[in-house]
């Protein structure tokens, strides 16, 4: 509980710091606050005890995902120091909104009551609508914000309707009571409950950008400021997946819902990877790659495997590390190429800074799932779950799609290791960015060789 209070106060303090317009102080304060939150959670002795009349429970599961989100936010704030250096106004608001969004993230990975799920998702999303439109003079940024807001509202509507129907069927918002209801129902039919589950899952699937609820993601990823895109594809994605799994983990899912999940998994894998093949803009590529990874993560959901939380945690954590690093590299390359976002802008990276190029190589290989990187371990464990749970053909699709996936990452690797032939300045890496990229690049290899280090 104290961590929620701390973060809320932190957000407000950041807003007030904005009055002094000292950017380094704002970022420093934000990072200090987040480190404080990290320590609070890590040192919390009252784990497992329900909070607020039993609507929140900070168990090991919630704690692990919260820690990942906080660490990634710290990395993004470190990046923010350089990213916002040239921005004239409203810097404090950006940091504060990210902190508020993070609070929503913490709520939805620790909920035990569906009302908190809804509130958490809204707290997570509303700051994002604003952040996506953070570049006020940019047309695309406004478009992204508007699209995200409109479609997000629809998703919220679905979710709310679904929760209402579930309440109608079970007469409770409490997750344990609903689980008990689904177990008692086992095999029987209850149309209201079923429809409620469908709509709720659709609402959450929107947040994780699973097909067919993915339409917002490429446009929003492309239009939003890069830092916010990175935030969305890491922290928000982690939170949404944590919530999704928390919601369905112990439910006795009716057959129709299981089928829906399998179809959703296959479609997501297929569409994300195939469409990514045609992308030449890096941010859109990352958007579709993010959809593709959603597909792999969904595969881990199928069947009730005891290892799923562990695998989700590892997958999301390492995915976030690789993604943050890549978005930073993108920002630097984009700056050197005067605003272009085509993957060609990575040309010459190896010549201008070999170490950063190698770190980029590691991160891309990790996303592609090449052995000895964390991404390989993550995919491998997902495949094992898929096969153990008997989803042979879905796993085959996933393996084939993993192959397709390698192709578009390799195209980016190829650019990074080709000599520069474009106009513009060489790629310059500020020390702080260098540090964050190095951390991310090294982490995916270290965690790939010693997967035991990242455990719930």
């Amino acid at each position, binding site marked *: 509980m104290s961590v929620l209070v701390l973060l809320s106060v932190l957000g407000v303090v950041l807003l007030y710091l904005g009055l002094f317009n000292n950017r380094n102080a704002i970022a420093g304060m934000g990072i200090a606050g987040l480190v404080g939150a990290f320590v609070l959670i890590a040192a919390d002795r009252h784990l497992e005890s329900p909070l607020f009349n039993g609507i929140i429970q900070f168990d090991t599961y919630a704690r692990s995902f919260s820690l990942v989100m906080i660490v990634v936010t710290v990395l993004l704030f470190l990046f923010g120091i350089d990213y916002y250096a040239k921005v004239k106004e409203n810097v404090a608001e950006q940091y504060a909104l990210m902190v508020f969004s993070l609070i929503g993230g913490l709520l939805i990975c620790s909920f035990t009551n569906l009302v908190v799920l809804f509130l958490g998702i809204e707290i997570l999303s509303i700051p994002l609508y604003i952040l996506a439109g953070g570049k006020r003079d940019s047309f695309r940024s406004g478009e992204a914000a508007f699209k995200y807001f409109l479609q997000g509202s629809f998703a919220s509507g679905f979710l709310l309707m679904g929760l209402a129907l579930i309440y109608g069927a079970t007469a409770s918002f409490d997750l344990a009571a609903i689980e008990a209801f689904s177990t008692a129902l086992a095999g029987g039919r209850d149309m209201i409950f079923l429809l409620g589950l469908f709509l709720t899952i659709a609402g959450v699937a929107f947040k994780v950008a699973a097909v067919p609820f993915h339409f917002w993601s490429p446009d929003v990823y492309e239009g939003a400021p890069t830092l916010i895109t990175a935030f969305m594809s890491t922290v928000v994605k982690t939170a949404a997946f944590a919530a999704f799994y928390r919601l369905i983990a112990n439910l006795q899912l009716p057959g129709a819902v299981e089928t829906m999940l399998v179809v959703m998994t296959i479609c997501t894998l297929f569409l994300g990877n195939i469409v990514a093949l045609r992308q030449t803009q890096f941010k859109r590529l990352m958007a579709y790659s993010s959809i593709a990874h959603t597909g792999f993560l969904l595969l881990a959901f199928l069947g009730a495997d005891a290892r799923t939380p562990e695998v989700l945690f590892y997958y999301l954590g390492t995915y976030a590390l690789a993604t943050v690093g890549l978005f930073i590299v993108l920002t630097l390359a984009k700056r050197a190429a005067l605003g272009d976002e085509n993957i060609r802008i990575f040309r010459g990276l190896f010549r201008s800074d070999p170490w950063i190029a190698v770190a980029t190589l590691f991160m891309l*290989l990790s996303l592609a799932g*090449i*052995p*000895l990187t964390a991404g390989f*371990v993550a995919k*491998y*464990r997902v*495949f*094992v779950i898929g*096969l*153990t749970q008997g989803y042979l053909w879905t*796993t*085959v699709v996933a*393996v*084939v799609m*993993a*192959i397709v996936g*390698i*192709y578009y990452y*390799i*195209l980016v690797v*190829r650019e990074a*290791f*080709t000599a520069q032939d474009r106009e513009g300045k060489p790629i310059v890496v500020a020390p702080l960015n260098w540090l964050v990229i190095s951390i991310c690049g090294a982490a995916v290899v270290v965690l790939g060789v010693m*997967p*035991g280090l990242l455990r719930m």
Partner: protein
Amino acid sequence: MIAALLLLIPFLAGLLLVIVRPAQARPIALVTSLASLAVVLFAWISYTGGTVIHYEHDWVNAWGLRLVVGYDGVGLLMVILTGVVFPFIIGAGYGQVSDRPALFNGLLLFTQSFLFLVFLAQNALLFYIGYELTLIPVFLLLLSWGGAGRRAITVRFFIYTLVGGLSLLFGIIYLLVQSGGNGDLSALANLTLPASTQLWLFWALFLAFAIKLPIFPFHSWQPETYYMAPLQGTMVLGAVMLKMGLYGVYKLVFPMVPAGVEYWQTTVIALALIGAVYGGIIAFRQTDFKRLVAFSSLSHVGVLCAGLFAWNAYGISGSFYQAFAHAILVLGMLYLVGAMQERTGTTDMGAMGGLKGHAPRLAALFLLVLVNAVALPLTQSFVGEWLMFAGLWQVSGWLTLFALTTIVIGAIYMLYAYQRVMLGPDRANLSMADASTRDHLYLVPLIAVTLILGVYPGPILELVDAPVQQLLTSLSVH
């Protein structure tokens, strides 16, 4: 200890080269590879038979990955091959234009280390990890130092290989799940899967190796990649990397899915031989020396694979024996390609001709390398091919006859190449240097190995014989 040395010597030296980038990169790399060779020879001398496990350590037990390294006779042969070949590959760099030599040689050493990992791994996942890792330094070698069209060709090569790799991974995971999470090869070999499963699992496992070798119809990445790659890159691909395919079949396909092998045996042999004949015919039509070597390699590999799938003692031993011979042959041929290019500035055979008059010693060396290529008796290739055909004969007489035509075709295109390069009117009109000390230092040991092993194949056949017999008996038990 031996395993640790083999893995670490090249890896650490490679790391040193890549990070420090010393000026004397090539001598350092050469010395490193000679040190590895010394370790390899020591391993050979101290080998007394059976499966030796050098090091065993739990890595991530929960999902069947353990660090188990060691070798049986066939594995040791592959280790020897890798150890022998790399000093030559690095040495070949002396005739080449060098751009960023430290990085280049560093990547070569990384490749060697990962190859050792593949041949030493006694755990299916560890094998897979090594198998994929070798790809990364080679990918960067081809991408940064390759010839024209490298960007597209390299990506195609990479994707092809990874398609196979992931299908292999899928097969391995399937096996792991069946075995209850124990990934050691010895444990997986004890699985008895239903025949219907083995039929498809065979392709999941074999596809990777079919692409790596490559056999027809999975070969379309190969000729262009060989042609475009820098000379030393082609040497790595042709001399060692494709042997991972043979070794993988022996290690992962034969023991795990014997019923699948039995069912698909004839199909694979037929495909391999089609590739062999097809590669040979196309090689004959080439006007470029390096392309000719690429297609001849395709042809040879087809025969290697057919011999392996004869699936009896003659065929398997012959195939591995020939694999060694082929590695030596590829080094020799490609070195000659490099030597010609150094002198004439091209690899186009149309621009050569009559070079014997200028460089009689080089021509003699060329001819000596060539006799191995056409499998003349008393050369190493003859032993290998004889064994393979004897093995194939037990499968089918007609297939053997078909396979024998590759020898004829091979002789035709090789001798024709010699004719076009060395004999005839002097088209190049160059005053070129004859074979230098460096050329002799390089080619004479290769030729010596060929001839010695052609007359006295015992040491290598002994290595291979026992494990192959053991494999075949264990299969007949199933």
